[in-house]
């Protein structure tokens, strides 16, 4: 059974000479982040259990022999921590150089995924040039014809974020690590195509990958378009969970979706529908003009005034012949609330009846 919540215990420690308060159970990294002290990370994702693989987040603790990974080390009362000493900086640089050497130099387009710029931004910030170690690249691109997820293992730095998000967040265990060291590569179970694995194509691995080794293939179709993309916060149009999303658009085109990490219902998660099924919006089958049925029994394109007049005329005629109750309104559970509100007002204010329903019964 889950235990009742305990009272919060707070204590203080010293971070870069500042005294800071923390709650028992917080890691040094979490305390630093709250104190607005920037510590670089690569294998860290706030939604996942700390992992301690990349060692980029190391800090010095006074009295300790070696630097420790701040993302896995719990804060202790009275602890004195330095996050930016020369030794620490040097260590981080070396690590980044090592990582950079494993990765081919390439501009990773931000359309690949939410976190895809993390590594490149760190390299830039620490002024690290790729190529110093001339190391062997780990893994090769996997041939997988699925239309959603690119797997480009030349860029993989073995941070395990994709594996962990799949196991911890999704509970799907669709991807695992194969081999070790430079040979290691992230792959679906037994190196099969994702389609044959337990993968549900929720896209979580893509969005957490800090290098673009995993990419959103649908969004990447728009890479060639030069403009920057714009992000617009909205809500997934499918089920009632109401996951928040950012719509990615270039000029007038909707090009992709990314999860909102702070969406109250989803906290960064999405499913295949919310992540990948957005392009009905600008599909060629969309109705672009009003239609009315002509003498010939077929629907014809007309202008708005003609269509609206005809729509209103029909209701007028039915009201005259059969009375107010003969007119019925069906509102949509898919359209925004304003549609349902105006629909019920149309029926109630227009005809004085309650002949209105929505499609929840079907």
């Amino acid at each position, binding site marked *: 059974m889950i235990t009742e919540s305990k009272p919060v215990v707070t204590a203080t420690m010293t971070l870069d000479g500042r005294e800071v308060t923390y709650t028992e159970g917080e890691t040094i990294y979490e305390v630093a982040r709250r104190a607005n002290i920037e510590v670089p990370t690569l294998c860290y994702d706030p939604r996942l259990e700390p992992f301690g693989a990349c060692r980029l987040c190391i800090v010095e603790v006074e009295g300790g022999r070696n630097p420790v990974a701040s993302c896995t080390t719990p804060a202790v009362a009275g602890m004195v921590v330095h996050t930016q000493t020369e030794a620490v900086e040097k260590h981080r640089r070396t690590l980044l150089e090592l990582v950079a050497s494993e990765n081919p130099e390439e501009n990773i387009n931000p359309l690949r995924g939410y976190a895809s710029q993390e590594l490149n931004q760190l390299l830039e910030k620490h002024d690290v040039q790729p190529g110093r170690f001339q190391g062997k690249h780990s893994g090769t691109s996997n041939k997988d014809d699925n239309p959603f997820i690119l797997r480009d293992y030349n860029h993989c730095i073995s941070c395990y974020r994709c594996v962990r998000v799949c196991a911890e967040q999704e509970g799907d265990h669709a991807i695992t690590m194969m081999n070790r060291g430079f040979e290691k590569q992230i792959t679906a179970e037994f190196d099969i195509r994702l389609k044959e694995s337990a993968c549900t194509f929720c896209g979580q691995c893509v969005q957490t990958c800090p290098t673009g080794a995993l990419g959103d293939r649908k969004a990447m179709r728009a890479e060639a378009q030069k403009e920057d993309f714009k992000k617009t916060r909205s809500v997934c149009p499918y089920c009632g969970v109401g996951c928040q999303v950012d719509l990615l658009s270039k000029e007038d085109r909707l090009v992709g979706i990314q999860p909102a990490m702070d969406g109250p219902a989803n906290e960064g998660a999405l499913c295949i*529908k919310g992540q990948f099924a957005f392009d009905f919006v600008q599909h060629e089958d969309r109705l672009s003009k009003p239609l009315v049925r002509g003498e010939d029994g077929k629907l014809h394109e007309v202008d708005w005034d003609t269509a609206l007049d005809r729509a209103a005329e029909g209701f007028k005629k039915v009201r005259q012949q059969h009375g107010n109750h*003969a007119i019925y309104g069906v509102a949509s559970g898919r359209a925004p609330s304003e549609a349902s509100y105006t*629909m019920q007002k149309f029926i109630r*204010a227009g005809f004085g009846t309650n002949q209105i*329903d929505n499609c929840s019964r079907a």
Partner: protein
Amino acid sequence: MSNPLADMDKPDVIFCIGTNMTECHPVAATRIKQAIKRGAKLIVADPRKISLANMANLYLPLRVGSDVALLLGMAHVIARDGLVNRSFINDRTDKGEAFLEHVQQFTPQWAAKISGLNPCDIEQAAHWYAQAERSAIYYTLGITEHICGVDNVQSLCNLALMTGHIGREGTGINPMRGQNNIQGAGDAGAVPANYPGFQPVTDPLSQEKFKQLYGREMDPEKGITKVSALNECGKSIHAMLIDGENTVVSDPDRSHCLRSLESLEHLVVIDIFLTETAELADVVLPATAWGETDGVCVNTERRVQRLRQAVPPHGEAKPDWWIISQIAQRLAVPGFEFESAKDVFNELCSLSPIYAGLDWDRIEKAEYQWPVPEKDHPGTPILHVDEFKNGRGLFSLIHYRDPAEVVDENYPVWLTTGRRLEAYHTRTQTGRAAGIDYLLPEESLEVNPENLAEWNLTDGGYANLTSRRGTVKIRVKSSGRSPLGTVFCSFSFNDVPVNILTGSGYDPVTETAELKVCPVRVEPA
């Protein structure tokens, strides 16, 4: 939902019934997976061995349509073994004694006979649910799409009331809404019995209020439901305005539905595609799609959130509220001078008690779950904390009823319908999203491998599925998810119009169709 989604990893016992959550509400299901990891017990009741069943500590493979029997049996065990929450029953509910006496007749053995379950599993479920500190119930259409849908829901309420598993964190009765804004449509008053904010149309005070607001006498009678309206087409209903619903494919008994809409004198459809329903219309009006317009939607936990425009409308498409307002103005109905979605939403807030503390700007950050009765109210993540909506919780004395049609010689197999992860509803949207076909190119009928041989079917071959209303040809797929004697498919594909078969009956109260149960015959095609 009585409780917020964020509560889903807090219960000690989670009881999922009639919900294929991993496919229909996948992101909510991830929270259940996390609860399990934290040590919560999961009970799953579903006729099909859905993936949630594979995660369960206790799986109850009940016969389709026998939910009430299971729930009565559980209530019996809880009462018999003294696991009721006496103080909750005394302080917060009515008719408790009558209910406890009522359930004495429904032994687990009785429930087992009807549901096909093992009586000791029913006992186990009852014990776990009642004894935990926090137990929560989650359900979806597997509970409501039955002739006894209301009985099912009330049976679940009975369980929560007798154990006091409601009104606290990590408890509650939590229906998961299927469509992104079905909650918002009800909130906005698009129902025959309520004005916006669930103010009853039969309440004289509310009638007076809306008479003032809308400037005309209000009908003191409820309207008829959509299901009745479809039956009345050509009789008492002669014109319809349908917004964004593909009635022909999504509703039961498709041929009846087609005939109904065709018999109207005037049909106006607002949609983003020329759906099978729009094709029947006299006037089709193109609406803006998601991503092309601003608006509000309300999720399953009553959270009021903003939808925002990212790209310009396709062609000449217009927002739904604009289109309806234009028709209203042409009929000289006053009060439709809206200039933006914001105008419309703010009017809704001004006359709905549950939104009274909200307006367009306040919901910018999506932090409110209704009711929000006044400005600077924090919203209500958990319902029924100190009091139920109407004061006290009322037990209902339910009896089990058979489905409208049961299997017999001619129709010996249970068909149950539902949804799939990759397809949404009638696929007007997912069917047009690039790549989805890669995963789900067509519909198929899931048949238990043992039944395959017995019915002379081959995996990947075709079968004819026949009910009292018609026949549908469908590809066959061998699947251990289907129990013996029960087959499953979704209604998402227009070329496999499964809703030709369904429609055997309706819940007498809500008139929701019994889509979950339909006796059929399965023959090689």
